[in-house]
């Protein structure tokens, strides 16, 4: 039974990726492919946030910072040192993983609001560095003309088609890695235990420091990878990548998709990105108004996001999850009461 549930999940996942790869070829147009490339990058970025914040419950407002570090590293290496973009992608992810450790280490002591605010401050520092370190980052207007991935065909349509397939493949592989870590390793169980009750998790012998750092560095690395993909597919990096608005969009997409499921936020990112690009035709401002409204409505009324809207057999599983978390909640309540009395 369990095997089939696992298999069904991965069948769904590969089916979705295959559909995403094939569908745009029905009406191929460079514009459509460019949109889909961005959607794939957002999906990876949002999934990386979900690994840290949705699964482990460590709320980060600073993923725009990791995203920007990844983008600037990839673009900067290609621009200043002329190294291969592939190396730039890996280097960006690796640097982000290190920075993630550096941010995660002091953050071990912090929870909830404090962590959110510190990561927000971290992203703001990254933004200001990108804006002011002009010789390396190009200042407020950023960097461009640093090339794209090697070996792409020159014709515009073929170029964006191949680029799309490459970006989709990398993003899907990275999302699959996140999903695998969260659902099929002990680390994933530890992440959820930390989210539900840190003290309870620790008392069960889970080394919460190690697992928090693990989540931090893996999540940061994936966000950095998304940044590198963004840099090479859009061809422009500027300090606004690190702005709080980017983090706001990540959070909105993740809540829309359903926290703590990896695939939900990835799907939510694609849908919400396409929705906001579609609304752009009505007016550039209205897509952001709708964005804000969707976030508010979903967080109040549909807290489990679109991942929680599933019908059929899955509802039974989610109900079981609900009773489990209720039991955990009751247990922690009684612990707290004991502490009080």
């Amino acid at each position, binding site marked *: 039974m369990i095997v089939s549930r696992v298999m069904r999940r991965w069948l769904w996942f590969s089916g979705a990726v295959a559909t995403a790869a094939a569908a745009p070829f029905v009406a191929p147009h460079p514009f459509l492919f460019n949109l889909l490339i961005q959607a794939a990058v957002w999906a990876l970025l949002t999934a990386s946030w979900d690994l840290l914040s949705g699964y482990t419950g460590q709320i980060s407002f600073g993923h725009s910072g990791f995203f920007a570090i990844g983008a600037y590293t990839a673009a900067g290496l290609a621009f200043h040192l002329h190294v291969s973009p592939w190396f730039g992608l890996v280097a960006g992810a690796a640097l982000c993983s290190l920075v993630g450790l550096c941010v995660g280490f002091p953050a071990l002591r912090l929870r909830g609001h404090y962590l959110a605010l510190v990561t927000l401050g971290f992203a703001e*520092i990254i933004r200001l560095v990108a804006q002011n370190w002009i010789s390396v980052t190009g200042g407020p207007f950023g960097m461009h003309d640093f090339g794209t991935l090697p070996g792409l065909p020159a014709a515009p349509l073929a170029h964006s088609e191949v680029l799309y397939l490459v970006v989709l493949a990398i993003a899907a592989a990275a999302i699959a890695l996140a999903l695998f870590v969260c659902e099929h390793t002990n680390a994933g169980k530890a992440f959820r235990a930390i989210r539900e009750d840190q003290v309870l998790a620790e008392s069960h012998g889970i080394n919460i420091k190690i697992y928090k750092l693990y989540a931090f560095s893996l999540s940061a690395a994936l966000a950095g990878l998304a940044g590198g993909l963004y840099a090479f597919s859009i061809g422009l990096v500027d300090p606004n990548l690190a702005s709080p608005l980017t983090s706001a969009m990540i959070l909105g997409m993740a809540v829309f998709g359903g926290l703590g499921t990896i695939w939900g936020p990835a799907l939510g990112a694609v849908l919400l990105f396409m929705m906001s690009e579609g609304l752009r035709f009505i007016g550039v401002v209205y897509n952001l108004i709708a964005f804000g409204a969707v976030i508010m409505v979903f967080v109040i009324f549909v807290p489990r996001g679109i991942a929680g809207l599933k019908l059929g057999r899955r509802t039974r599983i989610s109900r079981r999850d609900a009773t489990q978390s209720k039991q955990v*909640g009751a247990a922690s309540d009684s612990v707290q009461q004991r502490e009080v009395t």
Partner: protein
Amino acid sequence: MLESILEFLILGIVLGGIYAMFSTGLTLIFGVLDVINVAHGEFFAIGGYIVFVAVVLLHLSPVLGILAATSGSFLLGLAIYPLLIKPMKRRLGRRPQGPLFLVLTLGLSTFLQSSMLAIGGGDYLRVPPFVRGMLDLTFTAVSYQRLLILSVAAVSLAALFLFLHFHRQGMAIRAVALNPDAAQAVGINLGMIFTLALALGVGLAGMAGALIAPLFNVYPAVGFAFTIKAFAITILGGLGNLAGALLASFVIAIVETLSVLVIPSQWQNVIAFAIMILVLLIRPQGLLGRADQK
């Protein structure tokens, strides 16, 4: 050198007054509702827009403009609790809130900011100074506009303090901040206090936005920089600690303005966040907080 230090000190104190009005509102809301209002800066911008409409478009007196900005954002603030926070709290029950309120107010922030962009356009709107002229202090001169900002900030913060300590509803607000369950048990209407605290907090932000409009221009994102700086201030002061927020506002503002003498001015904005991260590492409870606070 000494003269420029004194000059920057005065500028820092005025900036501190604005930070204080902004951050005490944020701290009040956090202390009472346990909600960090990410949309706080948007009410700052709304205050700026109202004063622009009143003073520039309708040619009303600045006093009326500031009053309109304060009451306008106060009235808008009255709607936040019943429309957004209450349904959310009801659905959550006793479960841990996690990031949900941050996400909620982030949505509100995006919504309000882009609505202002849709209505007012993205232009930088100029508001003329409410009072003209400079006060000559021999070594430097301070514009009356800045003195006005400082004095209104002082009066409104003193009024807030008196209200919280001597008025019945103000004492109820402090009671709810201390312990909502106990406050409810003695017959305090929690919903009303939550609504009032939120409206007071964003009303202060609106007033600050109106006051500072002649110095900064008015545009939709004007408040966001203040919001994230106010987070640094509330951390330095200790989350939910009003006196701490007041002190931290002046500390950060003065350090920021004096820093221009030592480091290039474009790095000025990094200081607040550097201080915030240092405080969290060394003294997470803030300047005036006690170790047992949350």
